């Protein structure tokens, strides 16, 4: 499998605090690479840097060989970097369908059109509905996104990301705050997406991580302390001491 996303020697400090300390990792086409680590390890900041919300101090972020580290977030999005947020980021005042239709609109034709009702554009709506169906939300299309349940909002955010036709999905704790039933549904959805997209997954739920991941990297104090196949990482004595310690 060829490398799609490669992060090389990435550094980021907030004052004296090193949140990203010489991180090098990659995600291959169709691979699900999970990043785990204790709270404050710099996982979210890492995703922020890949998606463009936070500028790295140094290092390279290569998407298919091209350095995207200096591009603004919307450019990276049009190049195929899609993400979800730890705290769900949707448009609460728009219907679920319109949330996704906007993502379709972002890549389909011009948005500098000042006339005509986009909510009646069949092409946008049909594609939006397809993506809602992937996350089992087709039946909730007309509900204002702000009125969806917490788990549904997470599913919706995933549908929005998918509608951009991404090359890589950056998922920041998709299971955070979901109940057992909801989290099973999210895992099933991710299972179905696995292999079709390159996915960089940050997650605290170890059962989900080891069930889904092709590769696991462990981030502690901003640095990668271990990386490899799930079983190897689980057996790594340093990882057990630093992170999984209490679970063994």
């Amino acid at each position: 499998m060829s490398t799609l996303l490669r992060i090389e020697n990435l550094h980021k400090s907030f004052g004296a605090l090193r949140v990203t300390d010489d991180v090098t990792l990659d995600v291959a086409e169709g691979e699900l690479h999970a990043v785990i680590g204790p709270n404050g390890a710099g996982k979210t900041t890492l995703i922020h840097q890949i998606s463009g919300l936070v500028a790295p101090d140094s290092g390279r972020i290569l998407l298919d060989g091209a350095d995207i580290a200096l591009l603004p977030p919307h450019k990276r999005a049009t190049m195929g970097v899609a993400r979800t947020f730890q705290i769900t980021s949707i448009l609460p005042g728009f219907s679920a369908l319109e949330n996704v239709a906007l993502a379709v609109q972002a890549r389909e034709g011009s948005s500098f059109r000042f006339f005509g009702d986009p909510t009646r554009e069949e092409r946008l709506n049909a594609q939006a509905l397809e993506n809602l169906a992937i996350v089992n939300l087709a039946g909730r299309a007309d509900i204002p996104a702000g009125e969806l349940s917490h788990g549904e909002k997470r599913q919706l955010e995933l549908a929005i990301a998918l509608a951009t036709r991404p090359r890589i999905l950056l998922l920041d704790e998709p299971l955070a705050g979901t109940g057992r039933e909801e989290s099973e549904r999210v895992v099933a959805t991710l299972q179905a997406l696995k292999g079709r997209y390159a996915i960089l997954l940050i997650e605290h739920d170890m059962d989900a991580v080891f069930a889904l991941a092709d590769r696991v990297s462990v981030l502690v104090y901003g640095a990668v302390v271990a990386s490899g196949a799930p079983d190897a990482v689980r057996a790594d004595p340093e990882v057990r001491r630093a992170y999984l310690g209490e679970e063994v």
Partner: protein
Amino acid sequence: MRGSVAVRALPYLLFVFFAITPALAQFGAEGYILSLVMRVMIFAIAAMSLDLILGYGAMVSFGHAAFLGIGAYGVGILMSHAVTNVLAQLVAAVAASALFALVTGALCLRTKGVYFIMITLAFGQMAFFFFVSLGVYGGDDGLTLRATPTLFGTPVFENTRVLYYVIFAAMLGVYLLLRAIVASRFGRVLRGARENPVRMQAIGFDPYRFQLAAYVIAGAICGVGGFLLAHQTEFVSPAFMTWQRSGELIVMVVLGGMGSLHGAILGAAAFIILEEVLARITEDWKLIFGPFLVLVALFARGGLVGFLRRLGGRR
């Protein structure tokens, strides 16, 4: 249910009211009423243009009156050079205010929140002092329009009713134009960026471009308001573009209800008529007007439109 029908019919009722006012005014102090209502409609245009960026774009511009003044000076300056053709004046007014919006907006929109408010205020003040110091065109005292405005050589606007319906048509046209814009693909992106700019960026939109375009559209439309204001008062002055005036425009939009367009019309009407009525009762009318605004801010969230909606039983 009947209440909610009335709420939905509100924009139509407003326009019907403005359309028949001249017919009713002839039974009263016609000249006074018409000039008051023309003023309401002109400020409704300015307030609607502000609503596009404030209500739909979440851009709190504290310098919006500058566009009103620039549009008015577009008329005044051309008139003083004997260019009486109103179409030429309209083009000048719109082009000048759109250009000012493009240049200042490109800088203002690099900032956010309270800094955006400050920098729009600063640009508004710059425009104000520019015209104050423009001695050739009256400076502080302003400029009285002595020439007769014409269209293809024929005098226009001499008949008050003609001017009234020109202003009415402009207000209706602006309303319909903005209604289409906020619902369009463009408007959807603008509204999306109001709700969650980070999400919009994450799906590939650059909010800056859309906000700047909206800012220019709003400036140009407000310039039309300035064009009409100059013809209605036959006078232009820097007083059209004081920062207090910018503040009044914000109050009109918020008072009527942000992000509804017809709320801006209602707000402009309520503001101007209330000001007029209270000023007749007492010289210290601001003592009554101030607390009234406080009450609206406290108890009528969503402005008058929101208040009527709740009366009508809809959320």
